[in-house]
């Protein structure tokens, strides 16, 4: 590969770009100097730490450790997604299962088809992308679900009073929520290459991969994001809608 080679010296010189932001903030009295500095220092420390950790894990070549890391990422994503669905009972567990099944199904297809190998340096970055995407999608689903069960209370109760069970009474809300979870991924898929050159693809090109190879990776990433989002949104909505009712099938 003859991609961009970033030495310590060039990285140090590039850090002068932070000064531009600081100067703007100072002269325009934006009062963002302190925040900018802290965030840059944090980012550098976090990224170096993660770099060394990944370097260490990749060196282990141990599938069990890779799996553990993926589970850890899934758990953190579930914690975060569940925050968007306050009032949803077992939100963390539901989110964990939804992300796990969504990411698991997608990774299985990728590994079985030979598109990626079950090795830390391939599985961990890919998992990071799909898990975070699923987390955002589930968060959106929860927001829509909790909002709709409040604002469309009459509609749900009318359906119940017509003799509907919980699923038919909630079906329209579930559909809208799943749609809400999936739309951002579909929208960004539509504009790929026209509006945005995704970070991963840009990164590959910078590192010296040919654009034709980089787009293959991006196409694969797009497919896996779509499937994970669909599976996770669907599961999260279908596992959580019952928590809006009590055992007498009454809307809480």
């Amino acid at each position, binding site marked *: 590969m003859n991609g961009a080679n970033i030495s310590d010296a060039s990285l140090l010189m590039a850090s002068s770009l932070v000064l531009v932001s600081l100067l703007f903030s100072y002269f325009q009295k934006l009062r963002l100097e302190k925040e900018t500095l802290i965030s840059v220092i944090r980012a550098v420390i976090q990224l170096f730490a993660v770099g060394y950790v990944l370097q260490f894990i990749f060196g282990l070549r141990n599938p069990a450790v890779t799996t553990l890391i993926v589970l850890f990422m899934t758990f953190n994503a579930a914690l975060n997604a569940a925050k968007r669905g306050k009032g949803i009972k077992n939100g963390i567990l539901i989110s964990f299962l939804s992300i796990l099944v969504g990411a698991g199904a997608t990774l299985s297809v990728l590994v079985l088809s030979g598109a990626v190998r079950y090795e830390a340096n391939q599985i961990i970055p890919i998992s990071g992308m799909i898990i975070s995407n699923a987390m955002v999608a589930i968060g959106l689903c929860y927001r829509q679900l909790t909002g709709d069960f409040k604002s469309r209370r*009459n*509609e749900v*109760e*009318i*359906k*119940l*009073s*017509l*003799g*509907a*069970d919980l699923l*038919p009474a909630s079906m*329209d809300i579930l559909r809208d929520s799943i749609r809400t979870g999936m739309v951002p991924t579909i929208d960004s898929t539509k504009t790929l290459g026209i509006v945005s050159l995704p970070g991963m693809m840009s990164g590959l090109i910078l590192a010296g991969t040919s654009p034709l190879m980089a787009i293959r990776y991006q196409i694969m990433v797009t497919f896996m994001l779509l499937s994970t989002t669909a599976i996770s949104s669907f599961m999260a909505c279908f596992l959580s809608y019952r928590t809006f009712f009590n055992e*007498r*099938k*009454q*809307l809480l």
Partner: protein
Amino acid sequence: MEQLTFRDVSYRQGGKEILKGVSAQFSAGDFVSIVGPSGSGKSTFLRLCCHLISPTEGKIFFHGKDMLQEDPIGLRKKISYCFQEPVLWGNTVEDNVAFPYRVRDRKIDREKIVSLLARFHLDESYLSHEVKGLSGGEKQRISLIRTLLFEPEILLLDEVTSALDAENTELIEKEILRLNRKGVTVLWVTHNAAQSRKYADRLLTLENGRIQSLEEIK
């Protein structure tokens, strides 16, 4: 045996007592008007009747059986509630009238739908009308038709004519009366004093969550 019995029923929500110690009995074929000022607990009373909520104290019996021991969905298929504000869903009127068949896993009985539409002065073409374009009166009639496609034992009406003109109101009143004569029990919440005494056999007055009176109308 009484069809519906309230025994010392109270309902509390968020620390506020909405119904207090309500006891009443209703027999098959009764026509009862329920009146009272806003916030007196009328809608809560109807919601308790069709098990959309349960009493926080006391018991409600349907055909002598405690409602809490019965299947909630089965109960709601026999005790139907028509809300004050009609809510229609989907795109067309057909999506709405098909709903009661869907939840019962039954084939849509188009003939029955068309004959009910006709009773409410709506023709078959309405089935393909978009719900967005319907007037308030049309929406309320469709909402009532949706409730009546499977005739309930008890029909609960929550100010269903309060936003309608005289013509629509009379149409709905006549149809309700016809159903009542066939044996359907009607519990009708209304603000309209004249309407409350027009067809009902009894007048139940609620005030501050208590039954103020339950008088026979001659």
